[in-house]
């Protein structure tokens, strides 16, 4: 009873804290000065059509580097927690049935298409909605389809770890390239900017976002693989 009252009071408190955001602040009519500056300068300075990508990769690129590091830490935590040794009976799985013919065939046909779509999404991150994170998720979906179709087989663990660490190193290397050849760490103007709206443009932004996409894809695949079980 006591706890219910406390929960109710906590909810009332939070409701009061959120009320000004929902009602009194209302909806803005104009973007603030910072947003206006980004909107006006991103296409001219970085030749990106997608301003969100310009902010994620370049203006706040250091943020994204930290975020990828957090993602790596969480994935490593999941992998370390869900080993057979640690989980005992919950970690070891009974031999499973093979997937149906339909799922197996679909996995064979769709894996390469899904992976290609993922690559398309992250290489066009500076032109259209999407980018490294969305493309990485699509690649993880391709891996998931394979896990579902062949539950017994193990993914090439070494390959995934290699992709993840190489793309992480490439991310930092591209950042350093910006520091040496342009104005600062993760400045995409280390490479020529090109023409707005072309696939090869916006300096290093497509490269950085591709590297992020590969890293996110490898990490999310690692989470799915760890949760599937059967891990030594």
């Amino acid at each position, binding site marked *: 009873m006591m706890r219910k009252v406390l929960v109710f009071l906590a909810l009332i408190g939070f409701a009061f804290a959120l009320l000004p955001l929902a009602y009194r602040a209302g909806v803005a009519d104009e973007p603030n000065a910072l947003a206006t500056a980004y909107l006006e300068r991103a296409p001219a300075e970085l030749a990106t059509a*997608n301003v*969100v*990508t310009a902010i994620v990769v370049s203006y706040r690129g250091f943020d994204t580097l930290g975020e990828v590091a957090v993602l790596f830490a969480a994935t490593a935590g999941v992998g370390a927690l869900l080993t057979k040794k640690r*989980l005992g*009976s*919950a970690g070891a*799985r*009974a031999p499973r049935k093979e997937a149906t013919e339909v799922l197996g065939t679909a996995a064979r046909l769709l894996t390469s298409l899904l992976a290609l779509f993922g690559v398309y999404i992250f290489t066009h991150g500076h032109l259209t*909605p*999407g*980018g490294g*994170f*969305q493309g990485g*998720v*699509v690649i*993880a*979906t391709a891996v*998931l389809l394979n896990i579902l179709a062949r539950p017994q087989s193990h993914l090439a663990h070494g390959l995934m770890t290699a992709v993840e660490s190489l793309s992480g190193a490439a991310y930092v290397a591209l950042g350093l390239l910006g520091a040496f050849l342009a104005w600062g760490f993760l400045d995409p103007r280390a490479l020529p900017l090109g023409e707005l709206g072309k696939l090869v443009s916006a300096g290093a932004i497509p490269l950085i976002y591709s590297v992020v996409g590969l890293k996110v894809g490898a990490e*999310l695949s690692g*989470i*799915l693989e760890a*949760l*599937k*079980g059967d891990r030594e």
Partner: protein
Amino acid sequence: MWTDVAIIIAGLVMLAAGIGAIVAKSLLVSIILAGGVSLVASLVFLLIGAPDVAMTEAAIGSGLTTVVFLYALARSKQADKEDSDESAEHPDAEKAGAP
């Protein structure tokens, strides 16, 4: 104005699905309803002009999160089953060992 009305309707749907996800007796129903909350949220993101976020939310929030939950639920159920198997086998083992 019509965007606002659509967002409010979507908000009510999300509220209903969210409450359903919390009160549902079955964890499976909860997981599916939580995925539904994310799916409607991605619609709201699209309505307010954030297609990047809408893509991410649709792929991660309602896709991969649901899969992750289902895998965890399956492993939890399996552990339950093996525990009950063990406790069922245990008396037999004692019986076999007694003579």
